């Protein structure tokens, strides 16, 4: 081989190499191209290097420099193309990005529990903790301790389901007395739970429903505290809104008060939702009746307190626009999944 032959072979490698490198579309193809061009044993460059030894001595320097230059050029190109291919492989093949992502099942919290959670969250900021009590309850805790007169029309508001010598509690208020017997004041508790009434299922009644009770007992607790705390709660829960308190009756509170918030639908001007009154009833409340404190073994001269109770189901129906309370009990998965967050 002459120097010229060598040079022309080197130049042709220099010309052929780059398009071949560029044409390598995969890492495997790239390896093949690399081996064919600059492979240590069988590539075209190694053939040149072998041929280099056959050239006359005086030509070898030039020839060697040329071969090296070609090698460096090709290796640089190979390296650069490898980086490109590797990146492309990482990205993977092109995808149709309009297609849906892979979903997982969405867990949900029941809408009634959502309301209870929210009430708890607000009252927690005001120092309340959570108390619980049994659903199968002694009549004394459910009625007698709460100052219900025996065999009196006040009982008609609590149509009761009986269980041998127990009752299914008709409200969460028995937890008030249990808590007052168990812990000394100061008391600030919430008592969420299920209660039972002998009411047949219809769109707005259920024989079992959730209630949430609140109780504050200490020295110096007044009706002003009741109004202030419950108004604050209403403002947090319903957003800035007007509240009003009106006289009511519960055997275990006195004075008793029903709290209304201004109707969110008509803003107080009257509509079917609020039965034209402009107000929506939210909760019942009142100063703890001294008889209740006495029944729990407390000094009713020293301690005063207030309590409230509300029905989260009714709030859930209103806020989500659910037309029938029975839907809350059906456990229809299509309904439950609507509450995914």
């Amino acid at each position: 081989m002459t120097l010229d032959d060598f040079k022309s072979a080197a130049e042709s490698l220099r010309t052929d190499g780059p398009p071949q490198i560029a044409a390598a579309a995969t890492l495997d193809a790239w390896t093949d191209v690399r081996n064919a061009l600059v492979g240590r044993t069988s590539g075209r460059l190694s053939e040149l290097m072998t041929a280099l030894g056959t050239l006359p001595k005086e030509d070898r320097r030039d020839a060697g420099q040329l071969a090296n230059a070609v090698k460096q050029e090709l290796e640089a190109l190979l390296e650069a193309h490898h980086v490109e291919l590797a990146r492309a492989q990482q990205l993977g093949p092109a995808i149709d990005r309009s297609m849906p992502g892979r979903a997982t099942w969405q867990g949900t919290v029941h809408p009634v529990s959502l309301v209870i959670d929210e009430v708890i969250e607000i009252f927690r900021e005001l120092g309340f903790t959570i108390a619980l009590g049994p659903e199968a309850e002694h009549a004394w805790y459910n009625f007698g301790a709460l100052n219900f007169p025996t065999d009196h029309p006040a009982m008609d508001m609590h149509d009761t389901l009986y269980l041998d010598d127990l009752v299914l509690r008709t409200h969460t208020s028995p937890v008030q007395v249990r808590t007052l017997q168990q812990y000394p004041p100061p008391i600030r508790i919430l008592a969420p739970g299920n209660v039972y009434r002998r009411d047949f299922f219809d769109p707005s009644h259920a024989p079992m429903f959730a209630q949430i009770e609140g109780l504050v007992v200490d020295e110096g607790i007044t009706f002003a505290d009741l109004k202030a705390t419950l108004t604050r709660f209403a403002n947090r829960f319903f957003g800035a809104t007007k509240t009003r308190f009106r006289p009511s009756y519960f055997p275990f509170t006195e004075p008793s008060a029903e709290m209304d918030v201004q109707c969110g639908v008509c803003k107080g001007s009257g509509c079917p939702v609020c039965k034209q009154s402009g107000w929506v009833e939210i909760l019942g409340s009142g100063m703890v009746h001294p008889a209740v404190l006495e029944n729990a073994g407390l000094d009713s001269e020293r301690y005063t307190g207030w309590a409230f109770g509300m029905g989260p189901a009714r709030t859930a129906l209103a806020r989500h626009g659910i037309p029938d309370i029975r839907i809350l009990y059906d456990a229809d998965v299509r309904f439950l999944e609507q509450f995914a967050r």
Partner: protein
Amino acid sequence: MNVSHEWLKAFVPHTLGAEQVRDLLTAHVATVEGFERLRADLASFVVARVVETEKVPDTKLSFNKVDDGSGTLLEVVCGAPNVTLGAMYPFARSGTMMPAGFRIEKKKIRGFTSNGMLCSARELGLGEEHDGILELQTNAAPGTSLLSVLPIGDVRLVVDVLPNRPDLLSHIGVAREVSALTSVPMRSALDAMLPADADGAAAGRAVVVGEAQRHATQGASGGATVRRDDPDGCPQYLGAVIRGITVAPSPQWLRERVEAAGVRSINNVVDVTNVVLHGLGQPMHAFDLGTLADQTVVIRRARAGETLKTLDGVERALTPEMTMIADAQRSIAVAGVMGGQESEVTDTTTDLFLEVAYFDPQRTRQTRRALGLSTDASYRFERGIDPQGLETAMRTAIALMVAVAGGRLDGNIMATGAAPAAMTDVSLRAARVAKVLGASVSSVEIRQYLEGVGFGVRGPGIGGRVEVGDGDEDEEFLVSAPSWRRDVSRDVDLIEEVARLHGYDRLPDTIEAYRPTTVPDHPLHVTGRRVRDALVAAGLCEVRPMPFVKGDDASHWRVTNPLAEDEPHLRTSVLQSLASRAEYNLTRMTGDIRVFEVGSVFLGKGLAHGVGTGTVDEEVRVGVLLMGARHPRHFADGASPAIDAWDAKGLAERLARAAFPGAPIAVEAGEDPALWSIGASGRMVGTVCRVSLDAPVWASPAFGIEITLGAMPVAPVAAPGASGHAGVRPAVALPPVPVRYAALPTTPAAEFDLALLVPDDLPAGDVERVLRTSGGEMLERLELFDEFRGAGIPDGMRSLAWRLTFRHPERTLRDKEIDGRRSQLLKSLENQLGVKPRTA
């Protein structure tokens, strides 16, 4: 309670509008939950002027042109004789619905088109006057709404009267409150009940009723006799005889009043009894005296086996617990509940026996419950009527009866028995008012509020009336309640009176500093919340179903008075409820069901079976039901596999860790029918099971998990009236045990796989136990990654493959060491379990 706005004004002539009365009552007395305009049917009537009129010869008809304010004069044919040019009349345009229920149509009469109707009082339902159309004395422009011109259109206020205030079940009771709130004095009961301009009013007022004849148990007057044999059921009974009455339809004013109260008008006699009930709150009854044997009225218990056909036509079986009104022979009315048909006033009745009584509240309540018969009368008696109001009611009734039905009082009022004793006086301290309300209400105001609604208020000292001062916080009053307020027995009852009359809205609402509660969060609330969060994060939906099930009496508590006989029991497992909910979903073609509930179950039934305690043992549990696709379907994956037992087991472990944080959890093969039992700290807390459902063929298998979170004991905290915390400091919950940091490895791990032939009846867990013990301390991880049956595996065997990860904490493990460990493991497996590696 239905309150007529107009009737209320007859009691207390205030000048407020119906809306103002509604707001006043709601703010201070009792909630007005209904506001009904009674003549809404006249809303579309207008006033119109006759601008041309022409008689049609030989008929009563006239052709008229009428201005109804519409801008066009309307042609109207009228049959009334009194059409007067230029006069104003009520006018119904064509298309208007008349109160009688027909619609005014445009029609042709004798070639003349009639475009509406000029109306008479009768056509408007305003009275019996039908001699001609109703001429209006008004300056209003034609087209003005009739209701804004005529003083009709009473408003009915529906007051929600709560059980502590039976005095509000009457117009007089509501009027007392309005009077106190507006400072407008009340008129007398008779003035309020008998309008001065009513026909016969003068005759009614002229009746001279002498002093009532008082007797202990028996009296006679006007030819009738009263004997009170059941003083417990009837502490006081008044009777009077009126002879020579004429039963007829009620006059318009009386009919309007009973109808405003929501009662159907029957006849003049019955309407008088109803107007007394709704006006004065005193139920009363009028018997046809002619039907009473020996003209005798006996108040006694029912005889055993006695029956009575009540006014509603139902034959009632009576028991000796019931108080009856009887004549000399038989019962004629259920006392305080309903009269009997035989002694009912009819068109031919001429002589009446009027009854005004005080029946015992509890007796009335028991009787009406036993009969399942609640009436306006029983509703009031069982809540307690005004025991001092009987005579006023009787006198008013006599005057009304004579006014509307004629006749005369024969003899006098017979009164037997006496009103129950007055309530004891209550002492009230101004300081206590301030302590409860958080506001100081002056002594003057306190007295003013209480006296306004009928309370007697005395200052310090006994008996004598001492002028009450102002601002003295130690001031103590002695307060006596009016006879109609038997709900007041403690100072706090009076504080409520002060608060509501002062106005809840006027009391302060300042938030005060508070001391922290002594009550820790209930542990079951904390646990329940943690469990719920874990399950929601795992993709499950919370449900809140009913706890009622169809069980059996041997193992389930039965509700004594269940709502539905097909589900009379309380559940003993949350899964019972979840299974029925799953079936509900399946009927709606939903098969992917992942639901859970944290709720109570009721155990302890079944003492005889050795499983119960004989008392209700309530437990709070979490139940989970899973079925359907493991994942939502994705196009890249194809159909998701169905949830299987391993999903349930895995979730059970996760759930148990959430329920019992820090406790060692063991999920092990359970006893049939459970798949697994769940243990926490060595205690069995729950199970995993297959759930059998009434399911369609396309449904996949269902799995259940149920874990007991804790007991919710019904045991009393302390005896009634006692405290359980005397001298006991509330327990403070211990802080949770923190997670312990494990040093991160700095040396490389060595891994190898072991594929073993394991007999079907040898639990993999046994193999793992041998691997762990023989693997030594350097065995960091043991992962079962394959189970295979089939080609190359002998029958009754399976190939199980584990990946074992070894690590030395300080140095790299040598290959030789690993190989040695591998042979040692195989040797132990062979020796201890006879398990060999899978070859080939």
